[in-house]
């Protein structure tokens, strides 16, 4: 029996999706939909904006107001949409390359404005759609087709970046902890401001295979074993922190929201 979520929120005519067996993207996509369902938002008042890459194909599968934009620009399109029609709940689906490399500038400026958009990053540490090149979140030393001898770039901590740039809700979860993703996307949507939810996804086809991380089950087990909630992480001694993935709500701030600020200017006339 098809899931009621799929029936209600997916464009079944656009399925099957393009993702590989074992990919984490489906888990994140379902979690976003579940969060929307939990909040009881009408499909007509939700706008899903995505960039380019494996994860960004998700917008086409979903039955909302959806737009699959150009590479890296999802947040810029989303800013125009939200600013022009603040009644829409705008959710951005983006990948690590899309959001942190080609779209990095848009990320920090959307965060700086604290515009009421929820960005969900599907971070699989690799450029999947183009076949496994290293991305800004590929850990230093790991391999990609364009880092055959190991990646010498330092990798971004995207949550720290979003927080430093001015996001008012920042969280991280892994695809092993789907319920946590659901909760975080809900909290992100509820936050009146820029919300940044990093989901640690898995790409067994490229990142896993290149770096001998085993199959999808092995990669899920790795997430299970290494994800530590922020509260617990903060209590860990330094030597036990290595390689841990800090999950949970990482930052909650208070700042005026961008569109509200602008509307005050309009109303002043």
């Amino acid at each position: 029996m098809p899931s009621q979520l799929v029936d209600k929120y997916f464009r079944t005519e656009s399925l099957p999706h393009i993702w590989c067996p074992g990919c984490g993207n489906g888990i994140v996509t379902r979690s976003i939909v579940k969060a929307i369902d939990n909040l009881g938002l009408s499909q007509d008042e939700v706008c899903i904006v995505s960039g380019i890459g494996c994860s960004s194909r998700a917008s086409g599968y979903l039955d909302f107001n959806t737009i699959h934009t150009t590479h890296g620009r999802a947040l810029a399109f989303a800013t125009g949409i939200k600013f022009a029609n603040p009644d829409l709940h705008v959710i951005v689906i983006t990948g690590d390359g899309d959001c942190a490399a080609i779209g990095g500038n848009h990320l920090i400026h959307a965060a700086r404005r604290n515009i009421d958009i929820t960005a969900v990053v599907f971070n699989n540490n690799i450029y999947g759609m183009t076949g496994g090149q290293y991305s800004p979140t590929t850990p230093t030393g790991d391999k990609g087709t364009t880092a055959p001898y190991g990646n010498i770039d330092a990798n971004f901590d995207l949550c720290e970046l979003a927080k430093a740039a001015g996001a008012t809700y920042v969280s991280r979860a892994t695809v092993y902890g789907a319920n946590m993703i659901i909760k975080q996307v809900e909290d992100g949507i509820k936050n009146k401001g820029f919300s940044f939810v990093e989901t640690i996804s898995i790409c067994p086809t490229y990142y896993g295979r290149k770096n001998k991380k085993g199959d999808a089950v092995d990669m899920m087990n790795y997430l299970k074993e290494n994800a530590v909630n922020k509260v617990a992480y903060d209590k860990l001694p330094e030597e036990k922190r290595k390689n841990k993935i800090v999950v949970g709500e990482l930052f909650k701030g208070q700042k005026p929201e961008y569109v509200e600020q602008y509307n005050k200017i309009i109303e002043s006339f």
Partner: protein
Amino acid sequence: MAERTVKLMQGNEACVDGAITAGMRFYAGYPITPSTEIAELSAAKLPRIGGKFLQMEDEIASISAIIGASLTGHKSMTATSGPGFSLKQEGIGYAVISEVPCVIVDVQRGGPSTGLPTSPAQGDIMQARWGTHGDHSIIVLYPSTVREIYDTTIRAFNLAEKYRTPVILLMDEVIAHMREKIEIPNDDEIKIYNRKKPEVNSSEYLPYKVKEGDIVPEMASFGEGYRFHVTGLVHSETGLPTNDHKIAEELTTRLVNKIEDNVDDIVEYEEYRLEDADEVIVAYGATARSAKSAINALREEGIKVGMFKPITIWPMAQKQIEDIAKKVKRISVIEMNMGQYFLEVDRIAGKFTKVDRYGRVNGELITPEEIVSFIKEG
């Protein structure tokens, strides 16, 4: 008829006022000389009428934001100059394939690259036509007076809405920055065109299906209850991506033909002293003003010169140029570049008459005296 308002107005200001008259309620941009006044005036004027102004982090973000805003039903515009126009090509291509109406103003300056930031040039003729990748057609308008900027900006919005396409307004620094007497047309003299909204209910809505007798698909806005998908990928009538070769061929052809099949509606031009001319100048923008002065001087000496001034530079006024070429002994294309429009005019007119060019790329407007001596040299 009510008396028109007469005032001194800068070209860039006329662009903003024309845009607002046309219904612009959303502007996103990035500061760049010599277009910055368009952003500044939009920032000042839009919130006063309930519109929105956004200064984005870069040129690409600006065009992305206006495409997003247009999808929510707002008439949207961005303005830039050559270096920024290069960056905007990504978004222009997206607006072409996703058929999102928007207006992009390029106040040209000397190039390539940073070039001559405060000096005029007409070097973006080909970038406007072919700047974004892939086969496509595009509408590009080119005003030459402050009043024409006002009118042409309104027309740019109308054409964008009618043909669901980005429309490019190319301007010259000379006109953008100068102030000139302008008679503002009254509201009853102005035609405003708004995009056609769907008549079917949401369950029957196919966002990219063209109804029999229509030029473009009906366009719903995000948030109106028509949930549809927009993508830069080749897509079927459903809006969903496809690799189907037949659909790809049909889509690209339709996008090109919706403009090429309606050239008569889109093309606008001015003929100056053409009736008895045996020699014709083709010029646009500020250069056309120099040409008019030159023509008046030459006429005083009994030399019968006229001008064909395209206001729509893309698509080209092929038919009109051909007709002129059949009647005159020479066509001279005068432009502030190294022959970008000349080659196109020559392609059309070269079969029938001699086609020459005169140009310069030093950052100065071509003078009437130069044109006079060029024409006299024969």
